[in-house]
């Protein structure tokens, strides 16, 4: 066992990032990448449960869900979508920068990403606050007087069923926001690590994998935005 690293390709022996049980950096990187993608699949299935609930209730309680959806502020939803897209761009730019070994630039992009993440959460909290003020938070204090505006036709909806929409809204966006918070934590850590010189042209797998995670959270929002805000606007 003493010679466990003797079989390793010479150029990689010096790389301090090579774990003992991998033959070379390529095997290690491929393993990490596959592992990350598998993890993303678990995330898809995790949100999939809620998407399934959404689909079921949109077919069975259409008017109530639509009425709830129409009270959301489309402006904030759209701005937040844009914020996330820009943050995804800064993530790929960070990876591009580290691929050229420009660590300072990488740090800068990661910091911007984190800041955009906070902007997203800030906007989300504005929306949540509005919901609280409007008594649109499910529970004993819930109150909803609106109707479903079906191209001008005002369709009354049952108050309790509109709670279904807001339950879905808070569950889905809340779980998404939780993922954003985790993402911000990861990105901040990576920014610090990059600042300390842990990553270089030769080794930046953690940044790459964190980027994959960030993009997936972005993709989930890309679906949440139309499902929750858009598709009931006009039917």
């Amino acid at each position: 066992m003493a010679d466990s690293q003797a079989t390793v390709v010479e150029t990689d022996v010096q790389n301090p990032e090579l774990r003992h049980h991998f033959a070379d950096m390529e095997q290690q990187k491929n393993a990490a990448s596959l592992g990350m993608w598998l993890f993303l699949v678990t995330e898809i299935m995790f949100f999939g449960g809620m998407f399934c609930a959404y689909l079921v209730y949109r077919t069975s309680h259409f008017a109530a869900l639509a009425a709830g959806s129409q009270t959301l502020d489309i402006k904030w939803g759209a701005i937040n979508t844009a914020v996330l897209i820009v943050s995804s761009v800064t993530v790929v730019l960070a990876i591009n920068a580290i691929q050229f070994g420009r660590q300072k630039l990488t740090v800068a992009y990661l910091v911007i990403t984190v800041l955009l993440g906070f902007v997203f959460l800030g906007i989300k909290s504005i929306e949540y606050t509005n919901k609280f003020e409007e008594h649109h938070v499910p529970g004993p204090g819930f109150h909803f007087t609106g109707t479903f505006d079906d191209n001008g036709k005002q369709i009354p909806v049952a108050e309790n069923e509109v709670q279904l929409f807001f339950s879905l809204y808070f569950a889905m966006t809340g779980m998404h926001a939780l993922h954003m918070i985790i993402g911000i934590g990861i990105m901040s850590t990576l920014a610090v690590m990059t600042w300390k010189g842990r990553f270089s042209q030769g080794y930046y797998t953690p940044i790459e994998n964190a980027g994959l995670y960030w993009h997936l959270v972005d993709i989930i929002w890309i679906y949440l935005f139309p499902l929750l805000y858009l598709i009931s606007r006009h039917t």
Partner: protein
Amino acid sequence: MAKEHVVSVGTYLLIGATLLALTIATTLIAFVNLGPFNAAVALTIATFKALLVILFFMHVKYTHEKMTRAVIVSGFFFLAILLALSMSDYMTRAWR
């Protein structure tokens, strides 16, 4: 190891701009009455955006790993099973 495909900054910016444009488009289209097609259009645009992110930002377009693609496809495949077979119950409850 160093065979990593480096995507140019220009490509990233172009894709980012496309995504932003699509966001504006889908938001505006939501106010146009297309009947049941509102949902279809919005979800098609969302899927297109997601594809752009997966292919370019997540580098799936450039990877030589068949496994990555297989993993993504199987993820969505099993999600589809969850949705489709659940709906097979809900859609047929009113029959008879």
